[in-house]
């Protein structure tokens, strides 16, 4: 079972507020990911990181930003939340030192912007 955590699990916030979604893992994985998932839809990669001080944009354009100052943390920030940001955000991590690299997911954060 993977040890990857996300907080908060649910967030309701007003337009224009700055928010940070937290993601942490205790497995020492070097790679971490953020996916966005609208209800009933597939996952879209918005950010990923190969390790400390590495961040890359994913396939889906996003107004969010990420940072990777420590191996275990990969927070996602929205400077000014808008209703269009309402979605579920899933964090994942993987160990690219193993042959069968597999992504493990956190429980997700459901964001509602009013």
């Amino acid at each position, binding site marked *: 079972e993977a040890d990857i955590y996300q907080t908060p699990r649910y967030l309701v916030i007003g337009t224009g507020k700055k928010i940070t979604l937290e993601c942490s893992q205790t497995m020492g994985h070097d*790679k971490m990911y953020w996916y966005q998932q609208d209800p009933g*839809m597939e*996952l879209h990669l918005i950010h990923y990181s190969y390790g400390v001080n590495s961040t890359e944009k994913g396939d889906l354009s996003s107004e969010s930003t990420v940072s990777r100052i420590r191996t275990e943390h990969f927070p996602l920030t929205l400077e000014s939340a808008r209703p269009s940001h309402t979605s579920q955000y899933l964090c*994942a991590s993987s160990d690219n030192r193993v042959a*069968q690299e597999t992504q493990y997911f956190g429980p997700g954060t*459901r964001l509602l912007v009013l």
Partner: protein
Amino acid sequence: AQSVTQPDIHITVSEGASLELRCNYSYGATPYLFWYVQSPGQGLQLLLKYFSGDTLVQGIKGFEAEFKRSQSSFNLRKPSVHWSDAAEYFCAVGAGRNAGNMLTFGGGTRLMVKP
């Protein structure tokens, strides 16, 4: 670029019946294939994965999947469905180590189980 198609958006089966969820992929090289399950309001849990070797792979919760290269498929099966299996199921293809092992997900299949 790789892609994944899950042709069935919704499937309803009776409890105790057998289940097969379809997954077709497109990828130029040998694919790495995964099935994940997502219960309502939860993250994704890995059911099983295929990297190489035996084309029939066993997973958790009594699930299995068979890799068929000739059909570009990786269908998920379970011989007897339980009510707790009701969830969304996602098939994913990995791009391989040289491409950073990035995953591309299918659109998902929502499974409903009738009592």
